[in-house]
């Protein structure tokens, strides 16, 4: 199984465009592909792919629950909680589920065994089928409930869904940035495709993304969206850093308009297919080259 993550240092660079078009193209080519939308704060792949027969499973985290009959209000739980998620006022214990990291410290360390854990739902993992002419593939979408602050458990659940049998290519649409949920999304990838724009903002954010990928010991290639719009500093940077550029998607108003309507480029502008095909060949070559390296 080949695991390819699509990420970017900043949002809005075309990460989702690349992921959904590549997934569609691979399905068209007869690959058993599965696309994971791990951008759980703003999952958008479904807007382009229109999955059907969606099933939804809750993502649960554990939170402590107090057994009042056993509790002596000794405050050990509040003292051991690193996140201020539990406190004792007078003789009652208050739990603040949104603050809880589910670390398990308070139930384990309560001297009276007065705490046990129960599930609390913070998001959903949806699975649906995307039809392509002659083939179909699975889209797995993580959705963080609005108002919840911690995306990582949902990201983990999405990634776990990707580990199931039945796909020879797993594509992951990671959230933007370089923080925890991104790391959780790209972990274990054979290659990370970093999507950027050839602008000063794009380059600044690409540098951060490259730093993150290297900190994780992973390998990256670069895809440039809106090629020709800014300047050549991004290409020069890639050359200096030895980063292969696997795609240069031109800056073309027709692309922006197709995207705005939620259309796939491989369908709306079929002449772009060959760009995605050649990108895929480069990705496969990059992964293979890596495997034969001593």
């Amino acid at each position: 199984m080949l695991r390819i993550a699509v990420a970017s240092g900043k949002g809005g660079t075309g990460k989702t465009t690349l992921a959904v078009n590549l997934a569609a193209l691979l399905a068209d080519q007869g690959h058993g592909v599965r696309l994971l939308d791990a951008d759980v704060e703003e999952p958008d792949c479904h807007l382009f792919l229109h999955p059907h027969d969606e099933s939804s499973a809750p993502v649960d985290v554990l939170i402590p629950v107090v057994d009042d009959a056993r509790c002596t209000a000794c405050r050990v739980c509040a003292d051991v909680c690193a996140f201020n998620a539990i406190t004792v006022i007078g003789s009652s214990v208050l739990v603040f589920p949104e603050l809880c990291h589910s670390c398990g410290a308070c139930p384990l360390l309560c001297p009276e065994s007065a705490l046990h854990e129960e599930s609390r739902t913070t998001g959903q993992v949806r699975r649906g089928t995307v039809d392509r002419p002659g083939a179909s593939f699975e889209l797995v979408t993580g959705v963080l409930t609005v108002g919840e602050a911690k995306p990582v458990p949902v990201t983990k659940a999405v990634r776990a869904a990707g580990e199931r049998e039945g796909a020879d290519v797993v594509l992951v649409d990671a959230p933007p940035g370089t923080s925890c949920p991104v790391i959780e999304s790209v972990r274990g990838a054979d290659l990370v495709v970093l999507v950027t724009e050839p602008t000063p903002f794009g380059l600044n954010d690409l540098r951060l993304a490259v730093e993150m990928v290297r900190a994780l010991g992973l390998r990256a290639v670069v895809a440039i969206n809106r090629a020709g719009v800014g300047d050549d500093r991004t290409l020069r940077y890639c050359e200096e850093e030895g980063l292969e550029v696997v795609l240069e998607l031109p800056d073309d108003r027709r692309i922006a308009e197709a995207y705005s309507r939620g259309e796939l480029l491989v369908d709306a502008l079929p002449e772009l297919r060959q760009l995605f095909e050649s990108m895929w060949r480069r990705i496969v070559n990059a992964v293979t080259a890596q495997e034969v390296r001593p």
Partner: protein
Amino acid sequence: MKVAITTQDNDIDALVDPRFGRAAWFIIVDPESEEWTAVDNRANADAGGGAGVQAGTIVADQGVGAVITGNVGPNAHRTLAAAGVSVYQAGNGVTAREALRRYKAQELPVVTTPTVAGHWS
């Protein structure tokens, strides 16, 4: 019963800090004698999540019956409610001393629901 006032400095003539959990100081004052002490909350003000819970616990432990502040979030509100502490809102730009005077004159509005949404980290 003692009152806690959130302030920007450790003095009863300092301005009321409009934030509860992330206030720099709490002035704990006896409304009758107007004797006061200051409790340092700066470490908590810089903390990540749960500042409201922590601050609520700190003032509850001081045995106060009321808090005078700007805004309270849902976590602080729940903590203070559990401790039976009433919350009063001081206006903008007033000192703790002036807020106390208005409290004693029963001029301050009492808060019965959170006034701002939560911030979780």
